[in-house]
């Protein structure tokens, strides 16, 4: 039953976007103009393309995110059964967390967390 409600919500969201766009396309006025389709850049014409090489800082944070996000996914099943796992489970996950904290400390020391 839950899975079907998921599909219902998905379809409803799509219907919302499609219906909104179609209604706007039908009732909105349309005019043509040389300047109208230009990307906005404070009124002057744009020079060149916008798809340029971008700074590497964002990429570093994306890599760090990947590491910690996967960690979160691994930790969630443990969080559910934690109360019945006892001290042994705690020790194992403590090791896991310690390795991750070490990774964060390494990135910190290397200056990957600085925005330069």
């Amino acid at each position, binding site marked *: 039953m839950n899975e079907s409600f998921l599909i*219902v919500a998905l379809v409803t969201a799509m219907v919302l976007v499609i219906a909104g766009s179609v209604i*706007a396309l039908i009732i909105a006025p349309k005019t043509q103009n040389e300047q109208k389709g230009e990307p906005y*850049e404070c009124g002057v014409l744009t020079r060149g393309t*916008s798809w340029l090489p*971008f700074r590497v800082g*964002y990429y570093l944070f994306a890599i760090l995110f990947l590491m910690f996000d996967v960690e979160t996914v691994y930790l969630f099943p443990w969080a559910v059964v934690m109360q019945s796992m006892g001290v042994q489970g705690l020790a194992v996950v403590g090791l896991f967390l310690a390795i991750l904290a070490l990774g964060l400390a390494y990135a910190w020391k290397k200056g990957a967390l600085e925005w330069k």
Partner: protein
Amino acid sequence: MFDFKIVTSWIDNLLRVDLGLDNFWTLAIEFILVGVALLAAYALIALVLIYAERKICAFFQCRIGPDRVGKWGLIQVIADMIKILTKEIIPIKRSEKLLFFLAPFFVIIGSFLTFGALPFAKGLHAIDFNIGVLYILAVSSLGVIGIVLAGWSSNNKYSLIGAMRAGAQLISYEISAGLALMTMVVLAGSMQLSTIVESQADGWFIFKGGIFALVAFVIYLIAGHAETNRGPFDLPESESELTAGYHTEYSGIMFGFYYVAEYTNLFIISAIATTMFLGGWMPLHIPGLDGFNQVMDYIPSAVWFFGKCAFCIFLALWVRWSYPRLRIDQLLKLEWKILMPISLINIAAVAVAVTI
């Protein structure tokens, strides 16, 4: 307390027995009803929040806010919505057309799927997975894809910078939000939202969980404000430097989708904070005061849920209009050097405290 299961089973019974429909048609009608109800709630909450934001922001700045259309400007938002529907959708030259029109889908789907999983009141709960918290974290991050696609495809330098900032900000703060929610999963021993709410019947987690819950609650609120691109964290669309950030080139209803998604995301963040920390639709119970508890039980569960949500939303608005915008290096430093170590220590501490 009133259980909404009564209403759903009554409708089911009405369709099956009284009207004598077979299984397929019953399910089809029920699915359409659920979809329409979700859509109506989604749109209504966005409208109410847009009005509340404009009015409360006005009062914070000693203005009156909208007051011309309808009494106290109550119909202003509906008028704006109709206006935005009649505005032209302008295609941008040399943009990635397909991705440009695909991006609003991701943003709306991401927030709508999360919206469907919220427990609004007792028995009023559409999507209730046993991995609920993980599901919410997963689908709510779909919005990032939409935002980055929007910025990349519009062939605009402002959009691209805004999208990159949004990407860095959203993915960074998602980790803290996830770890804060995990603290509550440890206390509840379940990821199913209905079970989490039920386990707060004898006391909300913010009271029951002690210092851990309090720390997690504050971290979740900060991370939540950052995830909605609001408050002091509105770098991706900082209007004084980036025009409008990733949705600069969107016009008419295409912009409206981003606008609606922003406000429903604010509601969703507040609703998740309510469910996980403030007891969801559970009434306030103080152990030992039976008379008081009985009186509290008479207040409907939906009122409790929306009241707590309104409190969280008001906090978000208050923060938004009180603090200046952060710089991107401050923003990332706050997450990676302050919130994240605190969340890691918090989750380790709660694990030790629960085990021993």
